[in-house]
């Protein structure tokens, strides 16, 4: 297998899924009508409801759904099961489930006055669905924040050449916000300046490696080389598990990330979060664009970086830790989330994108098209790790992507630096947004019961403290799989809601209903397997050794997994009852569509 063949398979998947399946559902089941007025045209307020050109909206929606998820999921899955199961799930997932989830979330919102999924669930399913959704969202964010902070701290600590670039990225983000919103500088000039300086800092990372390496060594000398926390990590020693140590330097970088996220969470969004995301976007987009094109032509130009070197298949149930189980079903289907299907896309699509749809004919290219494009991003990540193969999964990804970029004549050390930076930047900028959203969710959820959490500083610090507790368990793979479970369950619930809506308006519900059942059963099973793994692989060994920090952290993770399962069962029962209610009822006569002005 080589990268050109994989890129061709990916492009064919996108083409066939869109033309043979998605378009047919759009025409025959949903019957999108370009003459029907959309909420954007009916309720235009110039801000939320705003008719927008489909190409602009495609770019906006794609950027909003594509970030670190498709990259990390593919990396982890390829490391655990091999590249073949990963690529098969990506292709089947996006073709039959992923695009349908993203597209139908936009459809259901457009056909329900631009309402959010929770508002529609309140109306169609049951009032308590909204509260359960809060639980999902908060823990979803907590899990992914814990996983991302853990990954980032490890990468930053072990790769001193990347740290300078991150510091400059932060400074340039702050400068960009000031230039755009205060000094009213043009976007193009400000972009060239800030992105250019950040790129130079990333490429000059090798120059600063010695300085930051010395800083790490100095920090570790503070405790005389002794670790702050010791824990059992089932990921080590070739997935057999071994003792792991959290050194002062790792804690320092974890806290530095938290400080960055705290600032991103409490400062006005234009001041830091938004411009940092923007600068980071250019870095990542450059690396990914060059990488994807490089992967396509590498077979002709530089064949040595185009051959897959990891095994195609590592087994149905690879060993992870002494007592853990990692069966391909259901675990692969939550490990790779965003490149195949993601619940967050549905949430965002319903409130962010649906209200800007100018024309019903745009729903498919924007919703389905963006998801199919994101699949290509996940495919690129999978290819990079499949050809990289050196060291830890993240390092393998950076090596592989660096190889693809080097096809264009970029020296390999700079290409690898850019690939590493792309990974770090995309995870880092998303993490600051996660904490921002967590604080909003926490204050909305518990603000009435615990008034202090309405304060943005308190809510941010509570969120960060919880995430750090999870990081100190050290097992980010389980955190990632729990996050994947929560994310996929949200997707299942979104598809369930669409199924209920389709039944309520007398349409064929199978295109959403069958994926909803599959994802629902799979993700509940995956959450239970993960809870089992955490208990036997992390909780028990650390309890036996009397290490309380990882015990508390892993105990919290088991609790979260069980809570998510309970919440899913509640929504499932409510959804099934609503579905039966609407199926028994005769289909309503179609309302005359509001005509476009």
């Amino acid at each position, binding site marked *: 297998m080589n990268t050109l063949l994989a890129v061709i398979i990916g492009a064919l998947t996108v083409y066939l899924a869109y033309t043979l399946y998605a378009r047919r559902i759009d025409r025959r089941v949903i019957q999108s009508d370009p003459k029907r007025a959309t909420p954007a045209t009916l309720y235009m307020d110039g801000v939320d409801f705003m008719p927008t050109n489909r190409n602009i909206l495609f770019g906006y929606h794609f950027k909003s759904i594509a970030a670190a998820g498709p990259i990390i999921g593919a990396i982890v899955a390829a490391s655990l099961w091999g590249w073949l199961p990963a690529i098969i799930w990506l292709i089947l997932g996006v073709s039959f489930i992923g695009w349908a989830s993203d597209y139908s979330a936009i459809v259901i919102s457009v056909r329900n006055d631009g309402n959010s999924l929770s508002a529609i669930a309140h109306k169609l399913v049951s009032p308590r669905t909204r509260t359960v959704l809060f639980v999902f969202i908060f823990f979803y964010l907590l899990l992914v924040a814990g996983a991302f902070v853990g990954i980032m701290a490890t990468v930053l600590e072990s790769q001193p050449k990347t740290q300078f670039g991150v510091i400059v990225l932060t400074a340039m983000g702050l400068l960009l916000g000031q230039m755009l919103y205060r000094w009213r500088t043009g976007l193009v000039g400000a972009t060239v300046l800030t992105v250019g300086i950040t790129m130079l800092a990333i490429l000059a990372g090798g120059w600063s490696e010695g300085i930051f390496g010395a800083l790490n060594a100095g920090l570790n000398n503070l405790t005389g080389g002794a670790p702050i926390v010791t824990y059992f990590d089932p990921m080590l020693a070739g997935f057999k598990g071994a003792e792991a140590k959290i050194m002062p330097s790792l804690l320092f970088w974890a806290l530095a990330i938290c400080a960055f996220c705290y600032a991103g969470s409490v400062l006005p969004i234009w001041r830091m979060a938004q411009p940092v995301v923007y600068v980071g976007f250019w870095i990542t987009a450059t690396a990914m664009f060059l990488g994807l094109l490089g992967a396509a032509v590498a077979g002709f130009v530089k064949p040595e970086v185009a051959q897959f070197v990891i095994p195609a298949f590592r087994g149905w149930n690879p060993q992870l830790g002494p007592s853990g189980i990692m069966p391909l079903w259901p675990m692969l289907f939550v490990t790779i989330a965003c490149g195949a299907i993601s619940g967050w*896309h549905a949430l965002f699509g319903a409130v962010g994108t649906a209200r800007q749809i100018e024309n019903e004919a745009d729903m498919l290219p924007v919703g389905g098209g963006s998801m199919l494009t994101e699949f290509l991003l996940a495919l690129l990540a999978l290819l990079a790790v499949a050809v990289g193969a050196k060291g830890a999964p993240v390092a393998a990804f950076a090596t592989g992507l660096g190889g693809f970029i080097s096809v264009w004549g970029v020296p390999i050390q700079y290409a690898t630096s850019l690939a590493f930076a792309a990974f770090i930047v995309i995870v880092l900028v998303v993490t600051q947004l996660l904490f921002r959203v967590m604080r*909003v*969710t926490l204050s909305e959820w518990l603000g009435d019961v615990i008034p202090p959490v309405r304060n943005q500083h308190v809510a941010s610090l509570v969120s960060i403290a919880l995430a750090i507790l999870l990081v100190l368990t050290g097992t980010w793979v389980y955190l990632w799989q729990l996050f994947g479970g929560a994310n996929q369950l949200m997707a299942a619930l979104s598809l369930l809601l669409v199924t209920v809506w389709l039944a309520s308006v007398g349409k064929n519900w199978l295109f959403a209903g069958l994926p909803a059942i599959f994802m629902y059963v799979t993700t509940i099973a995956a959450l239970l397997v993960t809870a089992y793994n955490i208990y036997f692989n992390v909780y028990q060994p650390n309890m036996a050794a009397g290490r309380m920090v990882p015990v508390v952290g892993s105990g919290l993770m088991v609790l979260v997994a069980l809570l998510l399962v309970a919440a899913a069962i509640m929504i499932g029962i409510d959804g099934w009852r609503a579905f039966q209610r609407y199926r028994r009822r005769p289909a309503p006569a179609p309302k005359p569509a509001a005509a476009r002005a």
Partner: protein
Amino acid sequence: MLPRSVTDRVARLREAAGRFVYGLTGYEFARHALAMRHEMEAVFMVVTLGDLIGVPVLPPVYSVRLLPYVVPQIAAWKRDMARRKEFLEKDEYDLHAV
């Protein structure tokens, strides 16, 4: 020379690509700037609220000077105020994917 249909198609493709890139990059800033202006305009709306409901809160001379600017926005403002909003709709909830 290329046939007209080909050049038209290339031009349309370039335009679509340009819009796609704008959607990826500058559109978010434009939306946020609009949202900031919307917040500012809401303040002026509140200033003229008294006159809208027939209870002069401010000396009418100021409202009268503002009215020509806010009248075109009144319908959209009323809809915005009346719409029940979910916590998911907060600006700060924009996660830009995970």
